[in-house]
């Protein structure tokens, strides 16, 4: 096929009148009719072979293009007719010499990573069905084969309108496992929802049917384990049907895992994992029960309602695990205003990380969906809303309980980076195990858990995590370095400079060593250098800070280029460092240069832009241009106010800067008002002992002596 332009096959609509005389059915004569038919088939089936030179010819020949279009229209029309047909008419006799004894395989319907699905006919009953062949899924031994067949037997007893019935299974003449199931002509659930522009109400109705089917299977002890839009088909009557029930396995038997857990393609890996419940990712098969299907259903429901998955931003498995376990998905209504509160609650209830907080059974879910559709109060609301709200509050509120949740989220993301691109499966499995054992260790240290944790301070909690991380990740220095780096950042957030220095310093030392062995990227090393630079600035070790930033800048420029948010961030920190070193001229021209580059950098964050303005205002203040400084601080505040919560600590800092300038300019009343606001925010966010709070308290005291 190489070199052909398939676009030529999808030409513009043409005049069918051209074809009113039958002799034109063969086109202009340069290609045979068969070639033109195949070209028509290729418009929907990219596998169809197209004759050499035909694509080019079609761009030029109106007659042939018209013929191909007409054939394609015929095919689409006839397919539509075939779908509408109540039952297949009389079939021709078939011989039983195909790959599967007793079946005649027809057209291939679908081919995926783990196998192919064919339209087929069971010769004895003349029943038309679908046969799925698990390619490359040969049994390791007789035992596996018997187990496979026994499981299929159980699944084959399921009879429910929303479950695609499995008929039987076996082993092909080529020793490949296969199973025959009901043939459903329909659309994938997500495509159906999109194509029919289903309202949230219609979607809820579909999911009520699905929940019924899943509840039925669960009552018979069958868990799906791999629910996703590709496994749910909506048939011609609008009934959703679940495919492949009970055929996903989590015990390492890759041959029978349609989810293809062992795939080496990171994207696919993430794609499938997007639907997996957090407990499925922990690697402990005993932790998995029917509630993992409810989680998956929640992800699919979310996707149908909003067009996106709840945790879509994850770039790696680790990050996804972190988000799933500790993140809170946006309410579906945040993405689709047509979704009502009830559906919000039902969806988020399904997405609870803790299985105990989800619906207990699929029946309970079906009941709540029915209630939502009938306009009766749903049962999930009370418990769930308050829980979700409290979870969200905890996420933003830096009190000791909150620190746990925040920290674990960040750590989850950082662990991710360390093995996101693990190349071999074995490596990935090891990383998964590491993660789960680390989680266990961290879990026992959580102040939310009973184990003597209630009295822990944030600092003690962080320290406990650090110790546990060191023990759990002893054999994974790269992961450990990432965790230490993250913990250091959290310490910095609490202005605990000594602890931050210890963690970030250890992370940097470890990464330097790994970097020398080629086990740490330039980007990761630069990250550590940048973070250590931050500590050095806070410790007023400005020369050391400058050196760290310059090294980080070199690495980041090399890795990401100059016009990159990360590179420019290090530059801005360097400018701030120069300013503190009183190299004001150098700092000013650096700020100007950064601003210019930032304007040419795509998606440069507004907050960073505000920081540049703020930095220049500091220089103005230092050089006695108080009015200009005040104007700069005010401009910076206006910018960050559009980006941040009203009581973000950075707003507090900004108000403090403004109040300081107002003091200099003799505007005491304004200064007191702004300083008081700053004090409130900083006290809430940083705690009474933080250096900035002490600064603002001092300012207020000073101002009150002027104007009591």
């Amino acid at each position: 096929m190489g070199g052909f332009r398939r676009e030529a096959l999808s030409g513009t609509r043409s005049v069918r009148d051209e074809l009113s005389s039958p002799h034109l059915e063969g086109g202009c004569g340069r290609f045979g009719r068969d070639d033109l038919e195949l070209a028509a088939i290729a418009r929907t089936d990219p596998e169809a072979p197209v004759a050499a030179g035909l694509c080019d010819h079609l761009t030029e020949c109106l007659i042939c293009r018209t013929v191909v279009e007409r054939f394609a229209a015929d095919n689409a029309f006839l397919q539509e007719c075939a779908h509408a047909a109540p039952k297949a008419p009389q079939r021709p006799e078939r011989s039983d010499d195909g790959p599967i004894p007793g079946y005649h395989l027809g057209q291939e319907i679908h081919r995926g990573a783990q196998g192919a699905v064919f339209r087929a006919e069971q010769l004895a009953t003349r029943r038309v069905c679908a046969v799925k062949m698990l390619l490359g899924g040969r049994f390791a031994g007789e035992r596996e084969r018997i187990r496979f067949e026994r499981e299929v037997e159980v699944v084959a007893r399921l009879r429910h309108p929303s479950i695609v019935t499995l008929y039987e299974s076996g082993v092909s003449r080529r020793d490949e496992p296969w199973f025959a199931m009901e043939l459903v002509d329909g659309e994938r659930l997500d495509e159906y929802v999109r194509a029919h522009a289903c309202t949230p109400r219609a979607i809820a109705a579909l999911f009520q049917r699905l929940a019924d089917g899943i509840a039925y299977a669960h009552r018979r002890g069958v868990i799906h384990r791999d629910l996703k839009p590709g496994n749910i088909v909506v048939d011609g009557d609008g009934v959703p049907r679940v495919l492949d029930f009970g055929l996903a396995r989590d015990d390492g038997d890759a041959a029978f895992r349609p989810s293809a857990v062992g795939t080496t393609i990171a994207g696919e890996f993430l794609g499938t994992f997007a639907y997996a419940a957090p407990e499925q990712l922990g690697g402990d098969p005993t932790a998995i029960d029917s509630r993992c299907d409810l989680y998956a259903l929640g992800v699919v429901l979310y996707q149908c309602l909003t067009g996106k998955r709840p945790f879509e931003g994850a770039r790696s498995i680790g990050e996804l695990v972190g988000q799933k376990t500790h993140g809170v998905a946006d309410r579906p209504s945040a993405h689709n205003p047509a979704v009502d509160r009830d559906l919000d609650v039902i969806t988020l209830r399904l997405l609870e990380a803790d299985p105990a907080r989800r619906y207990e059974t699929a029946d309970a879910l079906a009941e709540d969906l029915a209630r939502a559709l009938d306009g009766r109060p749903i049962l999930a609301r009370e418990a769930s809303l308050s829980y979700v709200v409290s979870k969200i509050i905890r996420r933003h509120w830096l009190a000791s309980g909150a620190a746990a949740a925040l920290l674990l989220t960040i750590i989850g993301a950082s662990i991710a980076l360390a093995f996101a691109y693990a190349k071999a499966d074995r490596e990935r499995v090891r990383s998964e195990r590491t993660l789960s054992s680390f989680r266990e260790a961290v879990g026992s240290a959580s102040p939310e858990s009973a184990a003597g944790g209630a009295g822990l301070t944030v600092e003690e909690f962080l320290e406990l995590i650090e110790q546990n991380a060191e023990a759990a990740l002893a054999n994974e220095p790269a992961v450990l370095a990432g965790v230490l780096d993250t913990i250091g950042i959290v310490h910095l957030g609490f202005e605990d400079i000594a602890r931050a220095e210890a963690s970030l310093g250890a992370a940097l030392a470890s990464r330097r060593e790994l970097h020398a062995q080629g086990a740490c990227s330039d980007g990761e090393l630069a990250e550590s250098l940048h973070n250590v630079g931050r500590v050095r600035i806070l410790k007023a070790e400005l020369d050391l800070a400058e050196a760290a930033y310059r090294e980080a800048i070199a690495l980041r420029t090399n890795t990401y280029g100059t016009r990159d948010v990360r590179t420019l961030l290090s530059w801005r920190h360097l400018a701030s460092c120069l300013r503190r070193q009183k190299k004001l001229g150098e700092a000013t021209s650096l700020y100007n240069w950064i601003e210019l580059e930032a304007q040419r950098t795509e998606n440069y964050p507004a907050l960073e832009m505000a920081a540049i303005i703020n930095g220049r205002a500091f220089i103005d203040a230092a050089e006695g241009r108080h009015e200009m400084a005040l104007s700069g601080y005010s401009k910076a505040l206006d910018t960050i106010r559009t980006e941040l919560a009203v009581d973000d600590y950075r707003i507090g800092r900004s108000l403090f800067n403004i109040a300081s300038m107002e003091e200099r300019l003799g505007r005491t009343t304004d200064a007191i008002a702004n300083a008081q606001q700053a004090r409130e925010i900083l006290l809430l966010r940083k705690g009474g002992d933080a250096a900035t709070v002490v600064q603002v308290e001092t300012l207020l005291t000073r101002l009150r002596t002027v104007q009591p």
Partner: protein
Amino acid sequence: MDAPRLDLDRTTTALLTGLFDPRNAAAWEAFDRRYRPILVGFARNCGARDNDAAEIAQETIVRFVEEYRAGKYDRSRGRLGAWLVTIARYRLLDIRRRAGTARITSGERAMVDLDDERSLGATYEAQRRQSLLREALEELRTNTRTDPRTVKAFEMLVYHGLSTQVVAEQMAMSTHDVYLAKSRVAAKLREIVLRLESEYEEAPGEWEGSDARPSAGLAP
């Protein structure tokens, strides 16, 4: 292979006119055979249980014929399908009201918002199209002079998803002839579909007012 040129004025209202006469069993039967399955499927997709769907179809047909005879059905005010949907919708709402807030049965929940005219229309149109194609296929098999070998080759190709080569082998035809058979059947089916639609003034895609949009796969 001339494209069918139907005399719409002559054929369109013939069947509907027959409904004026209570003794015109043929017209009744034809109307019923055409619309009952569509209405049953429509009602089911709107969330009615099987029993209710049958009842809704029955009541809708009766009510339509009453209104038609009373001269209330006005072509210019909407297509026939739109009339039927309007009637059926009231019956569906009745049933929903009767069921009150109690849960009807699991798995029989409304798939379509009864207040959303567009999705109601789309649901009806999908059912209508499906019934129409079934009727056309039935006619192709039983009532046309199309060569049985042509029909058989078409069925093997389209229904059984067999490849052109396999069909050619089994039917002792060339692949060229298999393709030809397919084209002939497609043309024949289109002709039947056009005629059936014109009988009830239900040209495809004319659901919303006069904004004609040809449906996929059908030659204009």
